[in-house]
């Protein structure tokens, strides 16, 4: 089908084209909901069955980094919404600015995530042969990034969790399966989103988006917000189990 200006050949009007694209995006997001739904179900059942292991696993995550990342991602959602607004009102100079801000925030998120992942590798918390939930407690010299007070707390919690669930190591691996599965899948979506943002940035610098035609900005915005929503759920599910102890 040939394209006339911004209008693709299969459509009659720009209005129809815009509605169609937006509906398509929403339906795609619903498939994403179901996609994450499967792993959420696995998480829920295992969390219920092996509560102690999941609580213990959650204690080993850094709540500071988690909260920081939540804030960063929410802020990126805000800048994204602003980019869409700028496109809607035709402020052509503001679009690339907000897009760039969104990208920067996205990369801060990646950075923090990288620090967290690296720490988990370092602490033998990646599911597999070398997984050892007690690694840091048993080898404090290898985990100097944990301060003495936290280490003492972790030791107490670990002892209690071991009492409750002697097979803690296996079950904590299930927690980390969920952790890496869910955050990994989320990160993959972020990477795709970042790619799309770069593409938008190029387009906006070329002045391609205007008040009349800004569908790509709008759609990528929807996608980016969805990724944000996934994180809104992942944060309490992974970081905040049993923190009151």
């Amino acid at each position: 089908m040939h394209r006339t200006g911004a209008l693709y050949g299969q459509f009659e009007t720009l209005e129809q084209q815009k509605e169609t694209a937006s509906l398509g995006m929403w339906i795609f997001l619903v498939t994403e909901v179901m996609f994450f739904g499967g792993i959420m179900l696995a998480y829920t059942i295992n969390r219920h069955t092996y509560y102690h292991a999941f609580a213990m696993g959650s204690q080993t995550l850094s709540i500071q980094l988690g909260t920081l990342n939540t804030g960063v991602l929410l802020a990126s959602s805000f800048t994204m919404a602003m980019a869409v607004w700028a496109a809607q009102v035709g402020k052509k100079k503001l679009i690339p600015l907000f897009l760039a801000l969104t990208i920067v925030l996205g990369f801060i998120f990646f950075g923090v995530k990288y620090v967290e992942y690296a720490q988990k590798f370092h602490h033998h918390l990646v599911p597999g042969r070398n997984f050892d939930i007690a690694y840091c407690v048993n080898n404090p010299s290898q985990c100097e990034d944990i301060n003495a007070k936290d280490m003492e707390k972790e030791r107490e919690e670990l002892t209690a969790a071991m009492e409750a669930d002697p097979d803690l190591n296996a079950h904590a691996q299930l927690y980390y399966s969920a952790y890496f599965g869910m955050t990994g899948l989320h990160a993959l979506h972020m990477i795709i989103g970042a790619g799309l943002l770069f593409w938008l940035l190029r387009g906006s610098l070329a002045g391609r988006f205007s008040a009349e035609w800004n569908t790509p900005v709008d759609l990528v915005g929807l996608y980016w917000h969805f990724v944000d929503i996934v994180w809104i759920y992942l944060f309490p599910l992974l970081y905040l189990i049993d923190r009151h102890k």
Partner: protein
Amino acid sequence: MSTSSTINTGPALKLPEKHYLNASYGIRSWLLTTDHKRIALLYLASVTFFFFIGGFFAMMIRLHLMSPYGTLLSADTYNRMFTMHGVTMVFFFLIPSIPAVLGNFLIPLMVGAKDLAFPKINLLSWYIYIIGGSFTLYSMMTGGLDTGWTFYTPLSTIYSNSAVAPAVVGVFITGFSSILTGLNFLVTVHTMRAPGMTWFRLPLFVWAHYATSVVMILGTPVIAITLGLAAMERVFGLGFFNPAMGGDPILFQHLFWFYSHPAVYIMILPAMGVISELIPTFARKKLFGYHFVAAASLAIAVIGFLVWAHHMFLTGQSTYAALAFSFLTFLVAIPSAVKVFNWTATLFGGSISFDTPMLYAFGFLGLFLVGGLTGLFLGCLGIDMHVHDTYFVVAHFHYIMVGGAVMGYLGGLHFWWPKITGRKYPEWLARIAALVLFVGFNLTFFPQFVLGYLGMPRRYHVYPPEFQVYNVMSTAGASILAVGYLLPMIYLMWAAFYGEVAGNNPWPATGLEWTTPSPPPTENFEVTPVVTWEAYDFHNRPELGLDVLGVPRHGGMLPAHGDD
């Protein structure tokens, strides 16, 4: 008014000068096309390829089972045969068959659009399908797959030493092709309808595909993540389904069947849609209870999602859950029954001809009736405890998937072949093929019901000799069935190039797709059509050239409330 059945087709019929097939030439023009009609043909070629691969495996299975002692194939080879038969047929033939071939070709034509809403995504979905198929073919050639098409854990994740990972990845990838197709259909039906094409003027084929798309959209992502987790478990040692790590193999079954049961509706709903086109066309009468048939499609799509654990009655599932799922299973039977009754009622007062597509419709009706009713046995808790995982189940789902979905697919292919290629197939040969298929099918699969009730479990490469009689019958039937499938492939191919020119509307039928030339031009319609008639209305369509002023037929059953 003419009295000939070739009313619109004078003696000097010619193909239109410019149509989608000759709009451009060369491999590039096909591989980079965004025309939904060409993509449909790409799909047609690829699903046919997979159908014959799957058919080859089926033939090996049946030949092997002639003897109870398993003399033809080794146990491992046999297990690979039925697994790969299942995987190819389910994921690479049945699920894409009607939607991706007929649906792709027809939905824009039927709603009066120039193309699907997202033509590039449509092409992308074909490429995804091909990539997924390649992975699976690769797995077949490097050790095959022996887990059963259901990939039950921990057999598939830990114990099997066949090429599970590439096959699972292949199915995972193909899922996205299905998602994108469904997405495209949903959006197209919502936003691309021609002026005057209201929801209740849509052909039931479109309704059925709408319902199918809902299932594709909401179910497929779940199988994707499930197979993704299973693959991660096999490769990286994640533990959700591994009992040795505290995981639960039953969870895999829940997630698997959450998609794979509704997937049956992805196969049968479009076939029902085809039948809902064929019966009114060849009875020249509005479909009885249009609104009920449309609603039944949606009801099947929704309730179909609530019944999955009836595949798991004997896994040690909670008794309460089993009761709930059995109850819902009986509920989902009702809309199917309503459809069958409405199709039958449509025949009354019609003017019925026995062209090949109608023979397929009759065949579908008979086979779907058996398949659907035997579903009641399986949904019934007290009988499932005996026949679960026996040949009774095998026979039941073949009646639905082959007797139902494939009959619908072939009926549809015959019906729209003149539209797709602009040419007619040899009618008598086609009628004989339809008959051969029907006989062969019943001979193959009916004995399997008896085998199942006698207690022969499925997926057996050897079996006690007392089961041999029925197995031999089944194998004999399968050879007839094979002929029945080869015939249409040959003469349809022939007809595409050398058949008699068909004209725009040879049957005649009422849908929008028949108002445009055969084969249609690339942009489908020369001007955007405006719809002023109800679906299947033969009476207010003078351009069809039918004898509406002749003696009207009586309703036959009961007085009509919807006379127009």
